[in-house]
């Protein structure tokens, strides 16, 4: 590397530039993640077929490399003759949309509540932390099932359910960080200088928890995608004609003896997406937060 990496990265991008290249892993997983993003953004243009276009004459075509497969359906077709590859590409969009909205909502709500809890302390903190405890005492999937049953299942319901489920995660971690940050001299000085609470939050606390938030958000992508897939698989998430990887697996489950590719391939898409976002998240954490680096 031409320049020595600074001990304390001054900004997120500066830190990234200084440290990329240490190992090949972030490049591989980053590229994979990029592929998923491209599939999500330009899916309609890339997909060889209409993801919902069924053609019963072409039902249960195996992938191209197997006997009876054809290049027209590279990854085969499902019970209604829908192209598996096109559906996986379409599913990338739903997975990423859900992940993006859910993470932004839960991150913003959780970070704000965590900052309030940590900064004000005392009774406010006690009440908020009890609320967090209460919510965390209900298994998240059970809570999600109940909420999904009350609201009618749809993409926005899934986002709401996941945001409600995950805000506690951000709240706890941000609170912990704020507890130590608020003891710093610059916060005390800002208070003495007459800064309002909003200014202290915005100017002095938020920038210091931003790296943690970004790392948490990246690490959460995989969990959210699995959560969405689980809900959709149970029939309480994304609904047809919308395409989701979990929904594809739910459809395929009935034909498990007949078409192995409809059971395996959507799962491989979930696995690769989660794997690469987890690897990128781990790498970001190691880069920005050496304290939490695992041995």
């Amino acid at each position, binding site marked *: 590397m031409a320049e020595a990496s600074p001990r304390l990265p001054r900004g997120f991008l500066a830190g990234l530039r200084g440290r990329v290249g240490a190992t090949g892993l972030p490049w591989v997983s980053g590229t994979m993640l990029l592929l998923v993003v491209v599939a999500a953004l330009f899916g309609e243009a890339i997909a060889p077929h209409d993801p919902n276009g069924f053609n019963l004459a072409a039902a249960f075509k195996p992938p191209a490399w197997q006997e009876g497969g054809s290049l027209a359906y590279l990854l085969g077709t499902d019970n209604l003759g829908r192209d598996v590859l096109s559906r996986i590409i379409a599913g990338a969009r739903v997975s990423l949309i859900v992940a993006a909205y859910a993470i932004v909502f839960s991150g913003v709500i959780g970070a704000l509540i965590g900052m309030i809890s940590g900064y004000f302390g005392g009774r406010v903190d006690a009440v908020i932390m009890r609320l967090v405890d209460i919510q965390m*005492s209900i298994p998240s999937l*059970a809570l999600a099932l109940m909420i999904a049953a*009350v609201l009618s299942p749809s993409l926005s319901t899934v986002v709401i359910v996941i945001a409600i489920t995950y805000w506690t995660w951000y709240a706890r971690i941000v609170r912990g960080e704020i507890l130590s940050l608020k003891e710093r001299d610059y916060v005390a000085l800002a208070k003495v200088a007459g800064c309002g609470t909003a200014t202290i939050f915005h100017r002095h606390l938020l920038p210091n928890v931003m790296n943690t938030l970004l790392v948490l958000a990246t690490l959460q992508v995989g969990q959210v995608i699995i959560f969405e897939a689980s809900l959709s698989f149970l029939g309480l998430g994304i609904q047809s004609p919308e395409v989701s990887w979990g929904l594809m*697996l739910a459809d395929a489950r009935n034909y498990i003896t007949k078409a192995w590719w409809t059971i395996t391939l959507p*799962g491989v898409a979930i696995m690769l997406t*989660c794997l690469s976002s987890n690897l990128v998240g781990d790498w970001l954490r190691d880069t920005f937060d050496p304290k939490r680096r695992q041995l």
Partner: protein
Amino acid sequence: MLGYIAKRGVHGLVSIVGASMLIFAISRLSGDPVLLMLPPEAPQSLVDETRRHMGLDQPLWMQYLIFAGKALTGDFGNSYRWQMPALDLVLDRLPATIQLAVAALLFSMALAIPFGVLSAVHRGTWIDNFGKGFAMLGQAMPNFWVGLLLILVFAIHLEWLPPFGHGTPAHLVMPAIALGWYPVAAQTRIIRSSMLDVLDSDYIRMGRAVGAPDWVLIWKYAFRNAAIPLVTMLGVYFAAMLGGAFVVEVIFAWPGLGRTVVEAVFSRDFPVVQAGVLFTSILFVLSNLLVDLSYGVIDPRIRRDG
């Protein structure tokens, strides 16, 4: 120590009461249960009568108090679908879920302990990397997909195991693997890092200096201490298994609490949903409470700070 236990106990109780409120509130949001129970052509007078009979004409907080009071005596109402007390149904299904969760936990530890120990002993070698890769893979696979793959390979192609159902030990194998796969990663990490700490300590170096064989040092002296963090976390993992059981039980038609709740959600059988989710939460809180208490026993500083 007593003060610490009492404080943790009160927190646990608050969590359970809060959870019961939340569960009650969510199920009431879904609309009028009377309309679900009665046929659509039922006359208005019957609807009103049923509503009064069920206490649904009372204000919401009053309804909650009635619900909580009855719940304390074990009365969660009758299942709309099964026409039997919801509590009986839940208690009937609970053992199967606990059986599955324990089996899954045993499976995950059976993998995590050797992986963690060997990764620490052979730090930086291919063994370490293999353990890491395996763990990362586990965290990227949804448990229901692992279950489907297991069915595909071991039930359909190899025909070694029954694809679903309950009763014999063979029925337990695949659900336990599907459920126990996920926590392997976290458990391996815990074992590995605490093992690294212990291997670096004086008494191990001393043992090495006097010429004790490696396997005695590793398994007899180092591992016993390194296992403590994992033991204290068992409650957390047990709770996580309960949560994960919801989907896995559906796939394997496992007659446990998770599948019962999922089915009840679909048929809007709210007494069963309420009782089922509340019982899962109570188990959840109890296992976390055990974790807190075991920390307190092991590390006296936590007791003081409470």
